[in-house]
């Protein structure tokens, strides 16, 4: 198998846009190709994440649409749908395609547009990633899924609403340093704790926003990457799943797919949690960050809340988590999120993250969760 590297990254400003998801992706891809110093004709395939295009834009077949807008209409392309982990799933596919020798240069990314529909409609479309026979008919929402995780974690480990709020405060503090973030404003613990309940115990400020945005990354085989001093190697990439139904999950306080994907990715990379300098993980809700830091082995089971409260995951802390501001402050255009997380970790490892730079970051990890905790991808990145 050949080694694979990220040689270019691009991310749009996250927030509300007038452009379609395909336009947003293409804008990010132009930046990623410029960063890679490659012309569009160098791209041999496009793997693309988009989730609710069918609902918010009445658009399926978004792979060729995105390729056409970018101006590479003849490359092989497929849209990946793995709920919020879609473009990370597309990334894993691209890595395998290059590692196996099928292609030398592959473009990966995603685009999503949801702020053109109402909150009630967006809430409904996102809920399509839960089960249509057992869960959707009862009005389950995504805040609802993670509220159940939160309640189970609180009952088992004594995790508090203040500890969850500390995650939101930290990610907003980081987001204030990121010019691409949807929210570039610090918030206080009190703001989080006094915000309205969305799904108890999760409040408005425990939840990431709805976001429009696009992200793209250029992947290349070792032969192409070797001459590029800013290339960042893919050290490992793994996917894992868990039962679709909430009732079939063995322990709601854990995300088993995170634990399985992390174990496989660490093994591929020959790394352990102690080797990781910077993490971009899936904080769709504050409790999701706490549970992910445990599942990735950064902290012991049950210690994630304490770690957040003590600042261990802040910039300058023991292991900085979500220096970009995370989904919470940077925003969460669901089809683009996995690629955007990879773009941030690559930027960090290159030492190009400006005021939010994690000092001495050599090894980074990204973690993207899809839907009702049934899909997780974990990847590791580093320099020689």
């Amino acid at each position, binding site marked *: 198998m050949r080694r694979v590297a990220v040689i270019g990254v691009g991310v749009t400003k996250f927030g509300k846009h007038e452009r379609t998801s395909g336009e947003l992706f293409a804008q990010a891809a132009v930046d990623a190709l410029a960063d890679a110093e490659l012309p569009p004709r160098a791209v041999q395939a496009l793997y693309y994440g988009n989730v609710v295009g069918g609902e918010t834009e009445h658009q399926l077949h978004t792979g060729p649409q995105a390729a056409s807008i970018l101006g590479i209409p003849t490359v092989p392309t497929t849209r990946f749908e793995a709920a919020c982990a879609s473009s990370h799933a597309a990334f894993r596919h691209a890595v395998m395609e290059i590692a196996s020798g099928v292609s030398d240069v592959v473009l990966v990314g995603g685009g999503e547009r949801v702020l053109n529909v*109402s*909150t*009630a*409609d967006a*809430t*409904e479309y996102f*809920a399509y990633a839960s089960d249509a*026979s*057992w*869960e*959707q*008919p*009862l*009005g*389950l*929402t995504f*805040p*609802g899924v993670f*509220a*159940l*995780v939160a*309640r*189970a974690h609180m*009952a088992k480990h004594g995790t508090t609403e203040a500890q969850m709020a500390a995650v939101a405060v930290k990610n907003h503090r980081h987001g204030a340093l990121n010019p691409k973030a949807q929210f570039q404003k610090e918030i206080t613990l009190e703001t989080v704790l006094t915000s*309205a*309940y*969305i*799904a*108890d*115990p*999760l409040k408005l400020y425990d939840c990431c926003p709805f976001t429009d945005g696009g992200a793209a990354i250029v992947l290349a085989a070792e032969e192409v990457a070797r001459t590029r001093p800013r290339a960042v190697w893919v050290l490992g990439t793994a996917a894992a799943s868990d*039962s679709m*139904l*909430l*009732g*079939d999950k063995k322990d*709601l306080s854990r995300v088993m797919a995170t634990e399985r994907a992390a174990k496989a990715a660490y093994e591929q990379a020959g790394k352990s949690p102690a080797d990781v300098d910077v993490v971009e993980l899936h904080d769709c809700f504050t409790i999701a960050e706490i549970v992910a830091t445990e599942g990735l082995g950064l902290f012991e089971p049950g210690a994630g809340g304490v770690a957040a409260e003590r600042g261990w995951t802040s910039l300058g802390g023991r292991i900085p988590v979500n220096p970009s501001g995370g989904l919470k402050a940077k925003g969460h255009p669901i089809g683009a999120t996995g690629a955007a997380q990879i773009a941030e970790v690559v930027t960090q490892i290159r030492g190009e993250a400006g005021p939010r730079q994690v000092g001495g970051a050599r090894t980074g990890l990204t973690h993207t969760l899809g839907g009702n905790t049934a899909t997780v991808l974990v990847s590791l990145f580093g320099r020689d």
Partner: protein
Amino acid sequence: MITLKGFFERARDGCLTGIKCGGCGEIAIPPKEFCASCGTRAWQAVQLSGDGTLASYTVIRVAPARHAADAPYAVGVVRLKEGASIFGRIVDIPFEKLSVGLPLRFRPIVVNEQTSVAFSEGD
């Protein structure tokens, strides 16, 4: 084999139906082909008591468009006496009385003209 349609027809009559693995004895909620625990494909329908305890719960205050008129409403995962767990609405219990471990009992409800799983206070 119990289909989804078959499950909800029985549920409408107040009967919660599970499937029991002929290989390892695991109780599951249908439909499933192979047992995720042992890989056997030898299910038998079993009538579940409908009694269980609340494993986790939440009150949904911002609802999807189709459920907006119902909000706020409580949902949760209930660990059934026989071993399987199932997601449902929690009805006829004040929100402030909900707690992990609360005994509950199955009852069918109709949401948007469709039979669905709910639980109310048990013994």
